[in-house]
Structure formats: C-alpha cells, structure tokens
C-alpha cells in the first residue's frame, strides 16, 4: 500500500547484495541506515554543507525507494539493496563517524522533493570523478561547499531550482516525538516526564546512568546527571541538555530495550479513555472529549498538510473548529465544524491506523494519572 503522505519509516530492510543474488536481509532503524550509507559514501572530513547535501540526497533516495515500493512491488521482501550500481552503499556492522552522525541526527525527518510533488526525490548521485551522472557529484558537492555554497544551494545546482527541503516529516511507528525545543535544567512538563521514564528504563540496562527519583516532570540535577551519563556512553556532546540528537538516541534505545521484556510492564499505570463518539461537540464545548478531539487533530495534522496544527486545551474554540472543518473537507464529510459520531469515528479510525500501538498513544496523549509533585500546564 502506498501511503498518501510520505513518512519516515521506523526501520528499513536492506538486502546485502544485488536484488536477485543470494544475500542476507537486515533490518535497521532508518536513522542508522542513513548514518551508515553516509559513512560509506563520503568522507567525514568534508565541509558541513557538503555533508548536509549528501545526507539529504541519501535520505531522499532511500525514502523514494520506500515510498514507491520499488522492490516490494516487484515481489522482493526488502526495501532497498546495498549494491552501489543500483542503490547506495551500505556496509552492515561498519564504524560511523561523529561529524556524519551528528548531522544525520539534526536532519532526521528532512528530505528533498520537487515543488508541487509529494514524493521524496529519487536523488541520484555519483562520485563525480571516475563516474559521472545526471545527479549530484560527491566531489563536486565538496568543491561547491568550499566555495561557500549552502547545502540547499548545492542541491539546487545538481537537481534544479524547483526542489524544496521538507523538514520534520512524521516518523511512523516511533514512540514519543522530539519536543521541538531542547529540554534542560528548569524545563517542566509532560516531555520532561517522558524523558525521565525513558532514562530510568534505559538505566536498567546501563547502570552508569543514575536513576531519577521521583519521576516528577521537573528537569533537575538528577535528570541532568542521567542525561550526561547517557551522552558520555553514546558519544554525544556531554552538555546535559536533551536536544534532537540526544532525544533520538533515547528514543532508539527505549524501543530497543523494551523489546527484551515485552511481558514486563513499564510499571506505569495507564488510565483508559472512553473513545466512544460524543453526541455532538462544537464551538463552546469543553472537557475531556474536546481534549481527545484536539489530540486526534494534532496527530492528523502531522499527516495531512491541510489540517492546521492546534494545541490541546480542552476548549472548542475557533482554531479547533477550523481544524475540524479542514479534516471534514479532507475526509469528504459535510464541513460544518460540528463533531458528531460520523466525524469522530472517521478521525478515530485514521488516528488508530497512524499510531498503531497502544503504547504510542499513551506516550503521546498528555492525559495521564496525576501524582504527587505533578507540575504541568496540562493540569
């Protein structure tokens, strides 16, 4: 099934050879895939804008293969191959370089597309010396970077002026999404609480990460100490601040460590929500069901460009109404801005499809049991 809006897959399956050759398939996280290819394709000593341009091209090429189901639609059981003549170079188990890793983390969720088109660009590239092609020249990109061009200027030089960079594309199948701004000592709220839960869980595998107690949603010295320990172990800049790279590392580890003990719960109590449809929600409505509605609209807005992103405050105001109407237009429902059972169920089914797992919905939905020391603008 080709999805309507491109998303960053959680993992990608790589065939370690030509499509019809007998070779292993390996499944790696998409972010690790990009880091591996970039470490295999270009030199980590190059100028930053050249590395950025190459990482964006690598990401877009892989997403294009994934989005168009290039191999799957031909009956293969993988998304891309490691054969350089048709795809990009991937060496399973190789070493990664810090400059490339940091840039790939900061560009996570970004790719190139043609203006007016939604599919990721099939951004071909070659080295530019022994092999030349219609796409990006790797050595040429470094030369242009030396001349002071930005990564976007470099990409336009090779792929034409009618390209644009999409950033923060939705990531499917992942647990919590990056809060948008770095978390540091003094930060408070649901994202801090999530971080504390995640750090404590990772700390059970990595005892060098000191425990945080209580998990209270307040970023204090204990949380900072845990972040610093994690950063030291995983070679991130040890600044005690949860930026995008640190968050991505936490997210990946959290997914990984949780595989081990699927039977063991996180020790976190869940409150269950009643997702049965309301009689009618409209401008002026308030309360828990409005919050749930706003949450669903938030999730949908990540995937549907026409639905504006709104906050969650439990009050059905003009912004909520505008988002509801935008969704109704998208779904072919009567765009009256009133949420009855039909609109509600339509949204709920789409959101359930997007989130996939109950855990993801728990982690993203800010509703949760209150406890001692809770401080948060959700309360």
């Amino acid at each position, binding site marked *: 099934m080709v999805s309507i809006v491109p998303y960053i897959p959680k993992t990608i399956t790589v065939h370690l050879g030509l499509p019809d050759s007998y070779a292993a398939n390996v499944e790696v996280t998409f972010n690790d895939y990009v880091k591996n290819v970039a470490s*295999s*394709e*270009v*030199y*980590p*000593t*190059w100028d930053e804008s050249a590395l950025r341009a190459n990482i964006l091209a690598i990401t877009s090429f892989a997403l294009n293969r994934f989005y168009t189901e290039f191999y799957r639609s031909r009956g293969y059981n993988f998304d891309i191959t490691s054969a350089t003549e048709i795809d990009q170079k991937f*060496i*399973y*188990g*190789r*070493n*990664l*370089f*810090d*400059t490339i*890793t940091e840039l790939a983390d900061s560009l996570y969720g970004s790719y190139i597309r043609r203006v007016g088109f939604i599919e990721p660009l099939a951004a071909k590239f070659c*080295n*530019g*010396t*022994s092999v030349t092609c219609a796409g990006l020249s*790797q*050595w040429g990109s*470094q030369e242009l970077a030396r001349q002071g061009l930005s990564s976007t200027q470099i990409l336009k030089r090779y792929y034409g002026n009618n390209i644009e960079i999409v950033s923060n594309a939705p990531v499917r199948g992942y647990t919590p999404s990056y809060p948008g701004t770095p978390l540091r000592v003094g930060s408070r709220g649901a994202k801090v609480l999530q971080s504390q839960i995640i750090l404590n869980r*990772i700390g059970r*595998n*990595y*005892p*060098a990460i000191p425990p945080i107690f209580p998990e209270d949603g307040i970023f204090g010295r204990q949380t900072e100490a845990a972040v610093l320990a994690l950063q030291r*172990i*995983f*070679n991130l800049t040890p600044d005690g601040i949860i930026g995008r790279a640190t968050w991505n590392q936490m997210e990946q*580890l959290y997914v*990984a*460590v949780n*595989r*081990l003990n699927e039977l063991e719960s996180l020790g976190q109590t869940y409150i269950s929500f009643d997702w049965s449809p309301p009689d009618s929600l409209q401008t002026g409505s308030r309360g828990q069901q409005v919050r749930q509605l706003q949450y669903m609209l938030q999730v949908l807005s990540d995937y549907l460009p026409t639905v504006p992103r709104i906050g969650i405050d439990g009050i059905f105001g003009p912004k909520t109404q505008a988002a509801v109407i935008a969704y109704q237009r998208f779904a072919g429902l009567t765009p009256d801005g009133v949420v009855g059972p039909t609109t509600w169920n339509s949204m709920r089914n789409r959101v359930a499809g997007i989130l996939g797992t109950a855990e993801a919905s728990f982690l993203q939905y800010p509703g949760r049991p209150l406890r001692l020391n809770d401080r948060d603008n959700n309360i």
Partner: protein
Amino acid sequence: MTGTGYLTVRISTSDAELPIQDATVTVTQDTPGGVKLLAVRITDRSGVVPNIAIVTPALSESLSPGGPIPYAVVDVTVDRPGYDRALVENVQLFPGIQSQQDITLVPQSRTPEVFNMTDVVDITSQDL
C-alpha cells in the same frame, strides 16, 4: 605530515542493548613489517572503550580527489568468555574524527563442535 583519529568501541549483546562489561578489545594494524598491536583495553560497565588515538594520514588527503587513501584502517577484535569472538576488519579512521564502532556479541553455542567461532565484519574501502 599525519593527523590523529579517535576510535570508540561499544560492545553489547542482542538488539536489546545489553552492554557487555569486561570484554577485551584488541586493536591491531597491518603494516609492511607485520601486524602491529595498537591497544588492548577492557570495556567499562557501559560496554565502552573510549578514545583510542590512532595515527592517520593528513587532513588534506581527504579534501580533494585522486590522492592516496586518506584514512587509516585498523582491525578490532573482541573477546569475552561465553561469547563468540568478534572481528571487525578495516575500521576507518580520519584525522580529527571520532569513529564509533558498535559490535554485537553473539552468545556461544553450547555445542562443542562449533566452539571458537569468530563473527567477522569486513569494512570495504571507500571508492571515491
């Protein structure tokens, strides 16, 4: 002229990220005069051996095409009782760059015939 690159090795087992403490990490390099031992270290409780300094070619070698190979290569061997030995060949090091080599150890088979297994990864060269 030469530069210095840095190698950090991280050892774990299973995809579930269990760090392996007290694994022996040996870093060697093939030279015209034979195999040269560069470092032997033990992993800490996070499974990490950090910042092994290694001599590399000069920075300028990797910034323009057509020159000699602009990076140094080393072999990394990991031993830990109870696990297969792991060997990663031709780990690349560039001047001023931190190279991160993650290695996953596989628990040893209980069948005697397959003792002394080595899991090998060979990093093929860049062909830029």
